[in-house]
C-alpha cells in the first residue's frame, strides 16, 4: 500500500523535465490528477489540534459508527467503521462529533472552485476527492512536476487539509492511486498495467462480498487479475468487475462530468460584535475583496461594479454600490471606490454581517505595457489612462455622476445648443465657428436700454456685428437674433444679441 513497495512507478520527478518527457505517445490523451482529502469530514467540523484524538461519527446500520478519525485516534487503534463504544474503549479521551455532510460537500465545492485556476475541467468525486484534467495545462505550467509542486504548495498554504495526489491517464486509475496513498505519475496507458500490478485487490472500488470472493479465489494483487482471462472473470464474478478493470486500464471510456463554475460571486463575513466604525467595516470589506479577486482570477474575468450589503439587526439591509469606469480586477481601486462610498454613508444602526456580491462578469483584458522605459510622464507616448480613470472614479463616487461632466460640441447654430455638458466620452462633432466667446451665460441676461442702446453697467460700444442667427423652426424653439460683439466701459468684451421678436437686448457671453 505504501510507495515503498518495489515495482511501483516512481513518484513525481523532482528534476526539471523537457516537454518530450511527458508527451504521451497517443498525442492528446488526457492526464488526470486525483486529489483525495482523507480527513475532510473531520476537518470541516473541528479545528486541527495536533495530538488530540477526535473522530466524526455517523448513524449507520442502527448504530453509531466512526466515519473518520484523526491521526492521534488512529494511532490508538480507532478505525473507520468501528462502533463508537468500541472506539471509546480503545481511546477514552476520544472526542466524537456528529458528521456534517452538508459542510463537507460545501468545502469540497470550495476546493473545486479553487482548483479552477489550474484547469477548466474539475470533477467532483463526493465525498472527498477531486479530479483535475491537467493535460491541457501542462504547457502553461511547465510540466507535471512544476504543476504538482504548485498545486501542493498552494493547497498547504491556503487550505489546511490533509491530501494525497496522483496522476494517471484514466480517472479511475488516478483515484485508485491517490486513495491508496501512492503519489505516482503515469503518463501513458501502456504503462498502467505494469504500474498497477503490485497493488492489492482491496484497493479496487468493490463491495465487501466481491472482495471476499476474490480473496477466497486466491487473488491477492491486481497482477493476478490481469493474468486471468477476462471472459472467465466476468462469468464468475460478474460483469461489474471486468467493466471496472477496463475503465481503470483505459479500455472502456469513463466520461466524468465537470463542474460548472458559478457565474456570480457571493461571500459573507459575520463581524465579531456590532460594528459601526467605518475603518473596521472597510477592513472587513478588504478581506472580501481579496476573495473576490481570487475568484475573478480563477475565472479570467473582471467586473465593473459590485454590491456591498450591510446587515443590521431588525432593520432592512443597506446596500452600497461601487462602480468602476471600466471592467477591472484591481483590488486596490475597488477598495478605494468603496471607501469613498462608505465614507459618505451615515450608518443608522450597527452592522452585524457584511456581504459582497457581484453577478455580471466580463472578460478580462490586460493592459499592454511598453518595453521602453519612459521616465517622463509628459512624453506623448505615455499611456494616459490609469490615473485619470482612477481620478474619475473617485470624483464620481464622492460627488455623484451628475457633477463630473465632459464638454461636447453639438452641431446646432443656436449658440446655447451648440454646447452640451454630458458624460465623458469621445466627441464626434468637429465643426468650427469663429467669433465665439469663451464664457456662455446659462440663460441670456436682459440688458437695460437707454436711447435704444444697450447698457451693462455703462454704455456699450458695438465693435463687430451683426451676425444674424435665425434657425430652429423645426422643434418649436426657433431663434431670431442679431449677435454683436460689444465692449463695455471697463474694456471687457461682451457677446450681446438683439432678439428680433421682442426687440430686447440680451447678454449671452463673455470673451476671455
Amino acid at each position, binding site marked *: 500500500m505504501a510507495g515503498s513497495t518495489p515495482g511501483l512507478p516512481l513518484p513525481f520527478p523532482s528534476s526539471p523535465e523537457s516537454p518530450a518527457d511527458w508527451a504521451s505517445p497517443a498525442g492528446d490523451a488526457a492526464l488526470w490528477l486525483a486529489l483525495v482529502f482523507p480527513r475532510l469530514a473531520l476537518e470541516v467540523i473541528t479545528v486541527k489540534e495536533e495530538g488530540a484524538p477526535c473522530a466524526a461519527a455517523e448513524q449507520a446500520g442502527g448504530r453509531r459508527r466512526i466515519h473518520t478519525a484523526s491521526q492521534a485516534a488512529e494511532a490508538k487503534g480507532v478505525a473507520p467503521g468501528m462502533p463508537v463504544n468500541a472506539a471509546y474503549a480503545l481511546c477514552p479521551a476520544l472526542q466524537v462529533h456528529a458528521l456534517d455532510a452538508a459542510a463537507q460537500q460545501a468545502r469540497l465545492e470550495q476546493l473545486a472552485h479553487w482548483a479552477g485556476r489550474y484547469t477548466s475541467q474539475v470533477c467532483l468525486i463526493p465525498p472527498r476527492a477531486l479530479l483535475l484534467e491537467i493535460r491541457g495545462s501542462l504547457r502553461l505550467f511547465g510540466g507535471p512536476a512544476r504543476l504538482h509542486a504548485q498545486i501542493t504548495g498552494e493547497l498547504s498554504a491556503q487550505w489546511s487539509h490533509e491530501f494525497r495526489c496522483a496522476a494517471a491517464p484514466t480517472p479511475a486509475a488516478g483515484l485508485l492511486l491517490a486513495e491508496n496513498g501512492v503519489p505516482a505519475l503515469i503518463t501513458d496507458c501502456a504503462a498502467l498495467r505494469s504500474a498497477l500490478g503490485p497493488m492489492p485487490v482491496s484497493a479496487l472500488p468493490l463491495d465487501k462480498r466481491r472482495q471476499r470472493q476474490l480473496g477466497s479465489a486466491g487473488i491477492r494483487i491486481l497482477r493476478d487479475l490481469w493474468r486471468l482471462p477476462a471472459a472467465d472473470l466476468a462469468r464468475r464474478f460478474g460483469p461489474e468487475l471486468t467493466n471496472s478493470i477496463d475503465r481503470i486500464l483505459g479500455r472502456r471510456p469513463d466520461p466524468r462530468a465537470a463542474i460548472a463554475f458559478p457565474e456570480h460571486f457571493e461571500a459573507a463575513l459575520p463581524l465579531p460584535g456590532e460594528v459601526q466604525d467605518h475603518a473596521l467595516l472597510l477592513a472587513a470589506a478588504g478581506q472580501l475583496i481579496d476573495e473576490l479577486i481570487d475568484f475573478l482570477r480563477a475565472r479570467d474575468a473582471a467586473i465593473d461594479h459590485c454590491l456591498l450589503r450591510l446587515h443590521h439587526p431588525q432593520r432592512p439591509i443597506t446596500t452600497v454600490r461601487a462602480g468602476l469606469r471600466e471592467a477591472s480586477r484591481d483590488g486596490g481601486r475597488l477598495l478605494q471606490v468603496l471607501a469613498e462610498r462608505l465614507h459618505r454613508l451615515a450608518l443608522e444602526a450597527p452592522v452585524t454581517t457584511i456581504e459582497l456580491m457581484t453577478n455580471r462578469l466580463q472578460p478580462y483584458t490586460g493592459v499592454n505595457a511598453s518595453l521602453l522605459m519612459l521616465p517622463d*510622464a*509628459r512624453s*506623448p507616448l505615455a499611456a*494616459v489612462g490609469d*490615473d*485619470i480613470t*482612477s*481620478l*474619475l472614479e*473617485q*470624483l464620481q463616487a*464622492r*460627488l455623484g455622476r*451628475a*457633477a*463630473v*461632466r*465632459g*464638454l*461636447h*460640441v453639438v452641431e446646432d447654430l443656436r*449658440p446655447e445648443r*451648440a*454646447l*452640451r*455638458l454630458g458624460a*465623458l466620452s*469621445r*466627441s464626434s462633432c*468637429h*465643426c*468650427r*465657428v*469663429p467669433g*465665439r*466667446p*469663451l*464664457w*456662455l*451665460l*446659462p440663460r441670456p441676461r436682459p440688458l437695460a436700454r437707454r436711447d435704444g442702446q444697450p447698457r451693462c453697467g455703462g454704455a456699450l460700444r458695438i465693435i463687430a456685428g451683426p451676425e444674424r442667427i435665425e434657425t430652429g423652426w423645426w422643434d418649436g424653439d426657433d431663434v431670431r437674433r442679431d449677435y454683436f460683439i460689444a465692449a463695455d466701459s*471697463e*474694456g*471687457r*468684451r*461682451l457677446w450681446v444679441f438683439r432678439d428680433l421678436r421682442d426687440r430686447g437686448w440680451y447678454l449671452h*457671453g*463673455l*470673451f*476671455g
Partner: protein
Amino acid sequence: MDRARPEKLQQLLQNNPAVWRAGDREQAAATGTPTGYSDLDAALPARGWPRDALVEVTARRWGVGELQLFLPAMRAASRERRWLVWVAPPLLPYAPALAAAGVELDRIIVIRSDSCSQDALWSMEKALRTPSCALVLAWLNWLPDAVLRRLQLAAEGGRTLGVLFREREVRHSPAALRLGLEPGPEGLRVQVRKARGTFRYRSVDLDLH
C-alpha cells in the same frame, strides 16, 4: 571658511528654488513654461508660468480675459495629450470656442460643484495630484491659508499647474505666483503681486484681441 562659504551659498541657491538672491533678478533661470505672451514672460521671474505650482489670479469680474490668458497653456496641455480640469466654473465654458481655439475637448473634465464647498476643494486637490492632469482651473471662495498650502503641495506632487481664480484680494497667500487682472484701455492689465524669485513687481498690458 570664507572661501568655502560662497560655494555653499551657490549650491544652496542652485538646488533650492525657494531661496534666491534679491539683487540678481536678471540672471534668474528660465524654468517656467512659456505663457504664450512674450511681454508677460519678460515680466515673470521664471520667464513663464512656474512649473508645478499654484497660481492665484484675482479679478473683480469674470470675462476680462482670464481664460484667454491661459489659452496657450490649455493648447500646450492638449498637444501633450494631458487633461484639463475645471472646478466649479461660474459660467459655462463654451465648447465651440474652446475647440476653435485649439483645445482638445476629449480631455476636459468639468466639475460642477458649489464653489464654497469642501467637495470642490477635495476635487481640486485630487486633480492636482494626478500626473496626467496638466492644468487645473478652479473658482473657489473658501480658502484658508492651510488649505492653500495643501493645494500648493498637491500641485508640486502631481506636477500640475493649478490656477485659482478669486474675486477678492487677500493679503497673504502661499501661492507661488499671484496676479491681479484689470481691464484697461490698452487691453488687459496684468499686475504681478507676488512671484517667487523677485521683489520687484511689474505690470504688463496685454492686447488679447
